[in-house]
């Protein structure tokens, strides 16, 4: 009994100590893209960490108990939403036992619904269509304009949690938004000069990027979202490449790119590139600007 009492005192004194120890805001994000945006906005006024790695498919992260521990200590949890993290984030939040970051609280922020999602489902929907996202395509962070909007939304929420630094957060977010606007214009000019106007991708990861820069996604290597390429579907894609003279296949680098070898055998003129699609998805991809710059360069063939 005495032992139990001692253990109890130690646990609750540790809880008390931990709750008082953090002067800076502690932010947890689901993806490295969001971590990059929070770091851009918050600078040294906060600490930020991501659950997913940039090399991982964010749909299929495992709800490691160590993530629950991080979520337990977070003041703010920033996620994409739109069902991107539906298979794992609810378990992390439930296991975190941190009422600050539950849905509806100031410490819970979903940015996807705030930036006009594309591919919203209209009418009836079934899983016969694959792992569809009824609320819209969740890969919003590959659009630099939406990244600016997300940065502002993050700044507003940080300001609500940390009022003394509110003006700082908003100022850095607005500066980032202006920079991304300027860069988008430059990227657009570069992409307007080249002949690549149609591409194939593995998954609908690049939808927002391609939509922003006016490039058509002619076909997807997955026959349906979440279903790996089948021989029959790959033949259909080869037909599309030939019919529409598609010059480029982009494979997001957490997918197996070997399927493109078969396509290249059939259509030697098509170029196939594996691309990182998240911050820290490869070396040198330390920010969303790096990721988008790399995508533009890849399409340019540089």
């Amino acid at each position, binding site marked *: 009994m005495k032992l139990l009492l001692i253990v109890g005192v130690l*646990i609750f004194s*540790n*809880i008390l100590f*931990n709750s008082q120890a953090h002067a800076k805001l502690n932010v947890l994000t689901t993806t490295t893209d969001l971590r990059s945006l929070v770091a851009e906005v918050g600078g040294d006024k906060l600490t930020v960490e991501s659950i997913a*790695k940039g*090399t*991982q*498919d964010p749909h*299929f992260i*495992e*709800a*490691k*108990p*160590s993530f*629950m*521990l991080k979520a*337990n200590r977070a003041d703010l949890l920033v996620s994409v939403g739109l*069902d991107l993290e*539906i*298979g*794992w*984030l*609810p*378990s992390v939040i*439930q*296991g*975190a*036992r*941190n*009422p600050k970051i*539950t849905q*509806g609280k100031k410490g819970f922020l979903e940015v996807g619904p705030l930036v006009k999602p594309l591919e919203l489902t209209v009418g009836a929907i079934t*899983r016969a269509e*694959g*792992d569809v996202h009824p609320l819209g395509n969740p890969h919003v962070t590959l659009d630099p304009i939406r990244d600016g909007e997300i940065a502002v939304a993050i700044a507003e929420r940080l300001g609500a949690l940390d009022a003394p630094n509110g003006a700082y957060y908003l100022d850095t977010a607005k500066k980032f938004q202006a920079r991304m606007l300027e860069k988008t214009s430059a990227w657009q000019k570069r992409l307007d000069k080249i002949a690549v106007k149609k591409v194939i991708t593995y998954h609908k990861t690049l939808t927002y990027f391609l939509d922003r820069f006016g490039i058509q996604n002619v076909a997807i290597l997955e026959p349906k979202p*979440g*279903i*790996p390429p089948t021989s029959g579907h790959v033949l259909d894609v080869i037909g599309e490449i030939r019919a529409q003279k598609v010059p480029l296949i982009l494979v997001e680098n*957490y*997918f*197996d790119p070997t399927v493109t070898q078969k396509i290249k055998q059939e259509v030697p003129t098509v170029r196939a590139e594996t691309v990182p699609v998240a911050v820290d998805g490869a070396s040198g991809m330390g920010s969303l600007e790096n990721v988008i710059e790399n995508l533009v360069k890849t399409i340019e063939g540089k």
Partner: protein
Amino acid sequence: MSSSFFWVAVLCLASSAGAAEQPSVRGKVFNPDISANFLGLGAWGSAVSDDPLQAPHRGLSLQEAELQFVSDVDPYFRASALFSVAQESGAAGFGISPEEVYLETISLPFVTFRAGKIKLAMGKHNLLHTHAFTFIDEPLVHQALLGSEGLNEVGVSAAVLVPLNWYSEFVVQGFSPTNDVLFGAHASGELGVLGHWKNLWDLSDDFTLELGASGVEGKNALGSTSTAFGGDLTFKWRPSVGGKYHALIWSTEYLQSHGVTGELLGGLASWVQYQFAERWWVQGRGERLGIPHAEAFQPQYKASALLGFFPSEFSGMRLQADQIVTQGKANSDYAVQAQYIISIGAHPAHSY
């Protein structure tokens, strides 16, 4: 059977009434998340019963259907109800039973309180519903010491996240001891008590190590105390680069009990799961029942191999072969089982 029809009728009526009274989208958003799992089984071999009144039995059968309803109740509680529809023991018909029905807190820091009918935190396997079993069947030691339904009792639970540098959770549960095998179906006013300590370390971004210990005791039908103790160790590898296509899990669970007979009986199960492609797993399991073993009990050894194919997150097919050797018995027993698992409805959040 009449109770089964009653429950099914209640569920159907509740569903249709909900639809009739809440035709608007605004009304529907407050409906609970509803999902169902269906498990079909084909089983053959000398280790499988010929008696169609037993489950599982030789041939094709509907192994189980699980109906789950989950929803936040208000800012303070979440409720979850999982009903199992399965063949009743000793009968050809199906019955519906509440496998887990509980409410839990969602607004308290560091602790989750839970009350209702719950799967007790006795190691790792006991927490799993049938559709999430690592193999088609439960380990021998769990069947022998806790019965086919496992330790699933009405009680209260407190799960505390211990503020250490690694994930450490301590669970204390008080319950009414009714388990047929461990407590002899005793239902007195006395409470049983269970403690579980779970620890998990991230050895790197790719590797985790989990170590758990559990202990339970409660008065049994003979008025004496039944006890059980368990330990589990799990090593998991899923690389952060290429982890969509490859993973390895090695898990070992030990369980021993002083049940109604008062004799000490224990057993061990150890299994390896390897994901060798995006949708394919191969698994192997070795078991020994009888460490230690009671005098009147013949130790058993079991080896299992499983191949699993999962076309999507929502469907799976598994083929399992078993060999069971019982000490003192001339011939081994064999079983081959094929299973499909289907999930429909709300997207589940997976546990680690």
